[in-house]
């Protein structure tokens, strides 16, 4: 049996993190962790579970200093219903609607998506494109890491063994708009084959592009960005950024071709007002 410690406050959580029991794992909504446990994936590496679900300080959405600040434990449902998100960063509300189904949206958290660090995590390309910053905290204090420096290798992150993700901060530059498109095999409840996110200013003067499911990590696509800003061959540039694989959800060829198709669509539509991207 694996011991579980449920905490209500950050100091309680930090106390356990400081003690560093072997095999400590954080539990938020559990929609990734419990699935893995059920499938016995990495079960033998779990020695102790720190349940942070009831830490209220980690919930909530606020607008401050031109940053949209979202607590790590904020659920997709909360994001979907947040007026702030819908007005300031509608793409994040839209992608939350495409994560799993209601049950998952009620329980799954933004922080869980980030810390799970799956290349197929649907919010992650948006966080990269939006230049989000992650506030990490632990018994040794707090620090900020930009999204791009957080994802290190396949499911490896910059999060220390004694740290929690506390909050995700999105800068809100005036002119830029964030858009994305998720491609799955069916119209709902489907794990992505590819997901492309773009943040751009009018006339594509400043462009940030990120992609999911096409590399071991959620990927910022710098070559494609350069091409988009300089009027170059975006399609060819993207192919140099990404390195997709064959798996049960898709093929290399499909991911390469469709990622480029979607990126071109998104860039083309950047001039038009934001709307929920048409789903297949």
């Amino acid at each position: 049996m694996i011991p579980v410690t449920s905490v209500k406050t950050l100091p309680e959580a930090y106390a356990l993190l400081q003690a560093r029991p072997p095999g400590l794992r954080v539990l938020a909504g559990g929609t990734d962790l419990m699935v893995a446990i059920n499938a016995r994936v990495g079960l033998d590496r779990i020695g102790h579970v720190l349940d942070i679900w009831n830490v209220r300080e980690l919930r909530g959405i606020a607008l401050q200093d031109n940053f949209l600040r979202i607590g790590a434990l904020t659920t997709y449902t909360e994001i979907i219903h947040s007026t702030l998100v819908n007005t300031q960063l509608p793409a994040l509300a839209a992608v939350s609607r495409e994560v799993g189904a209601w049950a998952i949206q009620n329980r799954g958290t933004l922080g869980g998506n980030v810390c799970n660090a799956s290349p197929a995590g649907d919010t992650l390309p948006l966080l990269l494109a939006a230049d989000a910053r992650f506030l990490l905290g632990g018994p040794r204090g707090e620090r900020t890491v930009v999204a791009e420096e957080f994802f290190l290798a396949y499911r490896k992150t910059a999060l220390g063994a004694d740290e929690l993700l506390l909050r995700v901060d999105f800068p809100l530059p005036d002119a830029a708009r964030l858009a994305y498109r998720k491609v799955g095999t069916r119209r709902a409840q489907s794990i992505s084959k590819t997901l492309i996110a773009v943040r751009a200013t009018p006339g594509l003067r400043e462009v940030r592009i990120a992609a999911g499911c096409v590399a071991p990590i959620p990927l910022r696509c710098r070559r494609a960005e350069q091409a988009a800003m300089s009027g170059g061959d975006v399609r060819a540039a993207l192919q140099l950024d990404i390195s997709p694989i064959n798996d049960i959800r898709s093929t290399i060829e499909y991911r390469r071709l469709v990622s480029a198709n979607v990126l071109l669509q998104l860039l083309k539509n950047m001039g038009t007002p934001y709307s929920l991207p048409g789903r297949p």
Partner: protein
Amino acid sequence: MKPTITGQPLARIDGHAKVTGAARYSAEVQISGVAYGVLVTSACARGRILAIETNDAEREPGVLAVITPKNALRLPDTKVPENDRVVQVLQDDRIVYSNQPVALVVAETLEGAMHAALLVKVHEEKEPATVRLDDEIKNAFEPEPQSASGKKSADQVRGDPARGLREAAMRIDETYQTPYETHNPLEPHATTAVWNGPDRLTVYDATQGVFGVRKKLAKMFALPTGNVRVLTKFVGGGFGCKGTPWSHVILAALAAKQVGRPVKLVLTRPQMFGMVGGRPLTRQRLSVGANKQGKLTALRHESVSTTSRFDDFLEPAASVSRHSYACENMATSHRLVRLDIATPTYMRAPGEATGGFALESAIDELAHALKMDPLALRLASYAETDPTEDKPFSSKSLRKCYAEGARRFGWAWNKRSPARADGMLVGVGMATSSYPAYFSKAEALARMLPDGTALVTSGAVDLGGGTYTVMSQVAADAIGLPMDRVRFDLGDSEMPEAPRSGGSQTAASCASAVLLAGRALRDKLVRMAVADAGSPLLGARPDEVLIENGRMTANGRTDSFADVVKRAGGAPVEERARAGPDEARKKWSLHSFGAQFVEVLVDPDLGHVRVKRLVGVFAGGRILNARLARSQLMGGMVWGIGMALHEETVYDEKIGRIMTRDLADYHVPAHADVQVIEPYFIEEEDVHVDPAGVKGIGEIGITGTAAAIANAVFNATGKRVRSLPITPDKLL
């Protein structure tokens, strides 16, 4: 008497119980003192169990037993009944497929058993294995005639197909493939076994047929059939995978005997991939020839499908070509290939779903090659009589289905290049649907109680389609009572025997028995009344007695069923009846038919197919309840969308293991994938098919759908996808 209740679109009478949770499914049966079983399954696809470490599991509190091939009770008989599936029940150390039961943990609680099951360590010795059709196709063999193909021989030839192909003005010769699929009913397989003494067994099982479960348990435990009782009151979908009892059913009974406690065993979703069957992979070659007018000159349909190393299941995919089109020169054949997989089984419209995809795609290819409207081509070879058996159809309204479907859909054949709308490619397609009308021996008992209500029973199963409701409707009409004074009960092997709910035969078989039993009861009550000195009807002629709402009237005088029973002493008055196919039925070819029309949108950037509108018109004899029948057809058509676009059981070919082992990876259509579905009926009066005039509509809805969608995708994109499912990567 003319039926007045039968056919009415009544809501399910068990609907309230289902939505409130009052309806108990097999996994929810409450038995005092029950212990919980959890299976441990094999990793490799073929090999031997070297050792199983059970110490850690056995030490956990509440664990009653860890049953392995080493310590499992020996079954008196390991052979299964004829036409039943071979099971793996811990009697030897062989591993014959991945995810096979190798141990069973029994504990006081479900959680305890699940945890202990994680602690069981199985050491396997792997042997070379393959799940790839290509590796073994050289060993394809001709299967014995078996029940799946209606005991018909694997091969049939008529005329001279080679000549017919030579002389054709246009020929199509293509190979089509349908993948492994898994049924995935919402309700998991679940069995609770209770021994009442050393030789009496009661089993609550999620099954499509209580009598089949009884027979298998009685045989394997060497018990008199009458000592085994099997119950199933509600089933949350079967689609074929609950048609025969699998390993876990026997293991629940074995475990209950071994630990001396009732045992409940519920499969997890991943355990439902393999152990309880699935649709086999088929590879089908179609060679079709036609003259310039589109009349078929030759039709050859050769099917290869997969089965396990230890049991033969045949997917009769080529059978559909035997009955579909008028053609002088025809050949059909079936071959089986053994692989290191679990035995496949019947899955919604076995044969017709898979074979119909190949045949109806090939017909569309031929029409395209001839630049003909595919509907016109089908009409050019319309079979007025069964082309293989040279028999008349008992009834066939396919022509009407085509016409009505074309009208409702707005079918206007367009040879021009594909259309575009809003950046999407638009295409239309159609296909023929068909499914045999099966009818098996069934019995029912009708009983009039002194309060004037009737209880009618037959040991059928309600898979969720509405058997409780339609049988009550038929019984009410047959006896002459309103719905609320009839109760129909089912799902108990102590009741009169009914066939298993498979092959769309329950409505036909059971309704015929209920009809005959109900009428016999009504007639008996009339005879009792006219001979009863206490009855106002004394002396009336039975044939002048009119019956309505439980009252009998003749010459202005009335009596009631309730009073007849009371005057006769108050004991229920009952009649039993049996229905079943007779010699006369063999003179006919018996099938349901239909036509499906579909409009698809294809995203040229993503390769996604959206089924925008699906119209199906079906003729399946008498419709007992239009509302429930519509649901059945709609469900079948949704399955057809899944078959066309999503469903595939994917193996890791290196280790022979299914990778898509849950509903996140095994895709069925989500609500958002299903747009407009319009099922319609053509009502038929068929006096030859069975006394109830019913052909069955549980399966026909899925037949033809995948082909219609593939044909529409071709119309939209110019790409012909011959291997299901039509995933986006196949279109880019």
